[in-house]
């Protein structure tokens, strides 16, 4: 059913439809509306779940570990400093192979304190073992929750998943959303029935001690599961498309990319702005296209290399910075994906801490990339430095 709703409300409704049995989260801007809604759903009897209130995010995700290990479909949501506080727990969730789904309303990391959007929070956890899905708009942010549970719980994957969407830009924006019905969700997403769970009658321990003789192999198994997830995402995305008309089978999406000379790579809501800028540049005769990355973990290296094989240059937009490295994480990984190719890949770190990115900025970046200028911050206010 089509409705006009706020991103956070749509995400909360999607989560409700996924029938989580345990929700534990700690409110933090700009994620707050999601967990407020879920608490209200539980209180009003609209969601048959245990809502565990906790004193901070570390406890929130720790409570989710216990619940998930006991065989419950489990949900949490956070952002920025809250996610940072979960750092240790995130690694434990993935290492125990618990398919928890967590929404991340992407926000900058302090200090300096910023409640505004960039992707530093979830990107900083790229090595934790979680799948990372990034939404361009609120329809995608909504739908990716259904996909995330289906993929995370697949026996071939058994890894947790972040569903990331830009804080405020998406979380607090009202957009038309086609919300699928409970009956449709139930058809797409079967009941969570893990092969193993905590049971006093049949004791089992999760995430046990591994001496140097075993640890390396556990990490290897997790890496294999990440790689298997590509196929599982493609299958789940295709099934979703067949059932509801929106196909999420591709880990990356091209927009006007087929004959593009300059390819712009981006993730999240900035893709919408970029598509508009691409339309305008195309109208002006410039062969520009967008490659949107929807799935950052597992990283679609081969897919990106294949999709960009014909372009003349690549501009990568990063709303994060790996301080001290050569730019943001996406540029670094795209450069790795393109290794051996002669196509120049230029990174642009931009929009950090909520700095607006507009169509003119995309045009300027394309102009810079054409001149071979890149691997730098974009949009610095020179008068401040």
């Amino acid at each position, binding site marked *: 059913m089509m409705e006009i709703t706020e991103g956070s409300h749509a995400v909360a409704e999607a989560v409700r439809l996924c029938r989580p049995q345990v929700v534990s989260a700690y409110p933090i801007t700009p994620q707050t509306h999601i967990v407020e809604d879920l608490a209200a759903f539980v209180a009003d009897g609209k969601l048959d779940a245990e809502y565990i209130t906790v004193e901070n995010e570390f406890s929130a995700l720790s409570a989710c570990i216990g619940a998930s290990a006991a065989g419950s479909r489990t949900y949490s949501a956070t952002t920025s400093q809250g996610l940072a506080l979960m750092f240790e727990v995130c690694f434990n969730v993935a290492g125990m192979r618990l398919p928890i789904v967590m929404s991340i309303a992407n926000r900058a990391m302090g200090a300096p304190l910023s409640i505004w959007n960039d992707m530093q929070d979830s990107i900083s956890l790229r090595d934790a073992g979680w799948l990372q899905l990034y939404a361009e708009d609120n329809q995608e942010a909504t739908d990716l929750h259904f996909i995330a549970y289906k993929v995370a719980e697949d026996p071939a994957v*058994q890894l947790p998943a972040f569903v990331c969407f830009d804080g405020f830009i998406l979380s607090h924006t009202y957009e038309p959303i086609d919300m699928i019905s409970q009956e449709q969700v139930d058809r797409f997403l079967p009941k969570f029935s893990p092969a193993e769970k905590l049971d006093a009658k049949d004791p089992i321990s999760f995430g046990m001690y591994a001496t140097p003789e075993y640890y390396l192999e556990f990490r290897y198994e997790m890496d294999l599961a990440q790689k298997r997830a590509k196929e599982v995402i493609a299958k789940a995305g295709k099934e979703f498309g067949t059932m509801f008309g929106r196909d999420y089978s591709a880990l990356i999406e091209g927009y006007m990319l087929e004959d593009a000379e300059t390819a712009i790579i981006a993730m999240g809501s900035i893709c919408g702005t970029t598509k508009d800028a691409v339309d305008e540049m195309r109208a002006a005769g410039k062969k520009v296209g967008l490659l949107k990355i929807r799935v950052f973990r597992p990283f679609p290296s081969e897919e990106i290399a294949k999709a960009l094989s014909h372009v003349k240059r690549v501009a990568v937009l990063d709303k994060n910075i790996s301080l001290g490295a050569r730019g943001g994480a996406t540029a670094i990984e795209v450069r790795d994906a393109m290794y051996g190719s002669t196509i120049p890949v230029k990174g642009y770190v931009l929009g950090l801490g909520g700095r607006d990115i507009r169509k003119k900025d995309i045009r300027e970046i394309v102009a810079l990339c054409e001149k071979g200028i890149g691997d730098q911050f974009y949009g610095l206010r020179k008068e401040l430095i």
Partner: protein
Amino acid sequence: MTLSVGCRARPGKSRDNRTGSWRVFKPFFDHEKCSKCGTCQTLCPEGCVHENAEGFFDPDYTYCKGCGICAEECPKEAIAMNQEEK
């Protein structure tokens, strides 16, 4: 043995870890001095000191980590910790 997904373990799994390889000092039990009180067996954190047919006690070196608690607590000083030779 193959790895479980998520390092999950059923009770008794610790038998697979032959912790004897961790040992630096190896306990030597002198039955001449032993009074068969069983303190070593009671206090062994690994539970790897066993009573033999004659009522004396011997460690299972497959699992004994060489912590030395038995030697420290033995009222007869019948247990000596010697540098492990491998």
